[in-house]
């Protein structure tokens, strides 16, 4: 395996999983760690890569005081083996082969991971499906996948960054929580919506989307709490 530092507190684990059966963009895996006395701890992590043979990328956000993420972010070494189970989850998924509807992705913090799998699956499939990503971060240095998102923008991905605490210099949008003006009403062909992030973020965004007239049946959510560590 290999790793990449994404931000000060987020790391990508690049895994080689022999015999991996493949997955849909949006699915997750269970990672299991085993201590020397046989004790095990498991956590779920979203897969950030599209299906690509035995290659898997997981995004791990450091949860201070957590049991598993500090180990994966700071203690794990290249070449170490880790137990993986999956893919898991068949609801929060986007499949370029079966879905032609426009897509609205709304991510908060490390909730970008399964959405990035969808963005990457779109590119891998050379899909022309209209994609819009609204990505909420605290500050400019918290943007995970920043360079890749810029590159994908040239490929028809519409990216809106929402800074909640600190906006970049010259930004026309002052720092503040995500609001209805960041999301937009469904126009023309209404999108399938995927919302992922911390509980409060997802709860608030899903409510706003319903309020804007999006069909609740076309809003799929994935949440993680502060105890996800």
């Amino acid at each position, binding site marked *: 395996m290999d790793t990449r530092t994404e931000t000060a507190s987020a790391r990508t684990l690049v895994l080689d999983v022999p015999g991996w059966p493949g997955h849909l963009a949006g699915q997750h895996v269970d990672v299991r760690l085993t201590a*020397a006395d046989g004790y*095990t*701890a498991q956590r779920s992590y979203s897969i950030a890569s599209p299906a690509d043979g035995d290659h898997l990328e997981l995004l791990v956000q450091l949860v201070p005081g957590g049991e598993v993420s500090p180990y994966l972010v700071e203690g794990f*070494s290249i070449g170490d083996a880790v137990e993986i189970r999956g893919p898991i*989850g068949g609801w929060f998924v986007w499949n370029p082969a079966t879905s032609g509807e426009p897509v609205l992705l709304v991510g908060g913090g490390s909730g970008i991971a399964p959405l990035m799998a969808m963005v990457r699956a779109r590119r891998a499939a050379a899909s022309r499906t209209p994609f819009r990503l609204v990505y909420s971060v605290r500050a400019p240095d918290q943007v995970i996948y920043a360079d890749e998102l810029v590159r994908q923008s040239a490929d028809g991905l519409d990216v809106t960054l929402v800074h909640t605490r600190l906006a970049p210099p010259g930004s026309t949008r002052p720092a503040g929580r995500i609001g209805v003006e960041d999301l937009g009403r469904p126009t023309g062909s209404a999108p399938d919506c995927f919302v992922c992030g911390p509980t409060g973020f997802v709860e608030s965004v899903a409510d706003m*989307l319903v309020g804007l007239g999006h069909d609740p049946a076309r809003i799929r959510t994935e949440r993680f*709490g502060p105890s996800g560590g």
Partner: protein
Amino acid sequence: MAPFTPGFLGRDRSADTTLPPGQYLTHDFPVLSAGPTPRIPLDRWEFTVMTEAGVVRRWSWAELLALPSETPTVDLHCVTKWSKLSTDWEGVSLDTLLGDVDTAADYALVRSYGGYTTNLPLEDLLDGKAWIAYRYDGEELPSEHGGPARLLIPHLYLWKSAKWVRGIELLIEDEPGFWESLGYHNYGDPWREQRYQGD
């Protein structure tokens, strides 16, 4: 046994005896659901039980609250690995709601406002094991945790405790619910770690 993970120590395990395998203790109350939180006005809320013969019983919100309630203190175990111990609820026992329903069914399919479903054997709803809960920790049940009322069935993983519950269908044949159709275990006993299909 799995290979050791080099350098992984894990948490202090001295107080772990009360947790099912693979679970960790949390003191907050995480929220997990597959879509937006439905908001149901109480004057339009109802809970129904439909038998395999198509006979329907209905309770309005006022009728539900008029039934004798219980105040179970139970442990919650979520398939996403967190457990929360000694949670306080108030609700109506399914024994009360199903007590005089005439049925030969062995299975139940629980339906929620918003379209969620989950299935379980009927016997798991009976004998003091399940409630329609409408108060949590001394307060009205918040909508993000399933209010106005949710099923509470603490001996199974929490996805079986359907939020925003609207009714139960009694069935002769088992019928998989939402997560049960998407790779999760059909029964979901946390003590046997029945998380996914094949466990």
